[in-house]
């Protein structure tokens, strides 16, 4: 192998890479927030008594989870304008990732809800709490703690999926990496630094969420 390493083009563009990383994190946090709220509602539908709502939740999850996220992104950004629904690049991507996150978070929260012992809901009933109060004060806090490990895994996955925003030219980390790659041809340097940035960020996210999880452990 005859390759002389030269990291200069990468360091020159270091602020761009960090900017891209920050944008990716922002897109992820926003989409996961939206997806988690939708997922929470769908998880209550999926574990509830109403057959139509259960079917809706299961249908949504099984359709979205079997679709490639890139197809959803392209469908929303290029396809929806034909129906008069045009969004800018970042909005399109957040919309796509939120829809995707909602499906995964539904499964996370559904499993969390199934892990809540029925006895504690009964205990809530026995002291005269209303059904809504039981959900809010008893079921939800216990479910969220159950769901933390799976939530953390999905958080990391969804953050990694922000790299796909490069496909519609949202200037996040992968987009800049490709740009520097094609301008400088410092292939090994660009991609090893980019991968290292993703790996470090994923590691920090899981460290942070694991810390939160152990503080909340019952």
């Amino acid at each position, binding site marked *: 192998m005859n390759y002389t390493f030269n990291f200069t083009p990468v360091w020159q563009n270091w602020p761009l890479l960090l900017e891209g990383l920050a944008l990716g994190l922002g897109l992820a946090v926003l989409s996961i927030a939206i997806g988690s709220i939708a997922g929470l509602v769908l998880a209550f539908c999926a574990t509830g008594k109403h057959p139509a709502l259960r079917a809706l939740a299961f249908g949504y999850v099984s359709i979205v989870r079997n679709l490639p996220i*890139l197809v959803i992104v392209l469908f929303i950004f290029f396809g929806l304008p034909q129906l008069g629904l045009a969004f800018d690049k970042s909005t399109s991507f957040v919309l796509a990732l939120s829809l995707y996150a909602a499906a995964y978070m539904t499964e996370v929260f559904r499993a969390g809800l199934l892990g809540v012992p029925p006895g504690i809901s009964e205990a809530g009933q026995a002291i005269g709490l209303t059904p809504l109060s039981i959900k809010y004060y008893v079921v939800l806090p216990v479910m969220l703690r159950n769901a933390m490990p799976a939530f953390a895994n999905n958080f990391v996955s969804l953050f990694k999926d922000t790299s796909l925003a490069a*496909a519609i030219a949202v200037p996040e980390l992968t987009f800049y990496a490709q740009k520097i790659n094609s301008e400088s041809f410092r292939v090994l340097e660009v991609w090893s630094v980019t991968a290292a940035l993703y790996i470090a960020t994923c590691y920090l996210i899981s460290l942070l969420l694991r810390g939160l999880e152990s503080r909340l452990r019952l």
Partner: protein
Amino acid sequence: MDLELSYFLSEIVANRGMLLQGAWTTVSVSALAIASGTLLGMLIGLALAYASAPLRWPARLYVDLIRGTPVLVLVLATYYMSTPLGLPLTPFQAGAVALCLFCASHVAEIWRGALQALPIGQLEAGRAIGLTFPRICLYVLFPQAMRLAMPTWVTAAAEMVKASTLLSVIGVAELLLTSQQIISNNFLNLQFYFLAGAIYFAINFCIDMLGKYLSRHLEGAGKPRSPV
């Protein structure tokens, strides 16, 4: 709002050869990645579960590094880096390698989890009747672990099909890139992305069904009485 359905249908018919070719590329590159990634992943998973530190740590490092990298970065890096590394790969080859590496990291974790879920007594019982470790794996551990790993492995396989769309970015003419090429001629964005989604859904749905069938099939074969 006009969906131009008749034009859409005629365009499907006109491009059916391309679409089938694209779908075939998607299925074949996914199958290749799943098969090779599963084999590699089982070896790495075995190392994670049973190997001593000098083997286990590289395995752990591999899994953590690959799983911390987005698949798209893996695909782009494999493709672009192959030339300076002295092993130029075609887009198809680079894509297959990247997906294989990705698949292996997932399967390794699944396989480690399944092996570690088996009661330690199984390994000891195998040793007690004088089986060598490879034979214990083959006759005692693997058949039981396979049953445990099956549902998650099927999910991972479906993930590979979804991840194969990323090969469109390096110019592998799989189903998504094919759809984009068709769209660039007829501008039916909505319709052909929808069609692509439907085909991916159908492929993954089949994998799901196959997985359910296999799980049922495996369940019959010498299931232990107590859940592990």
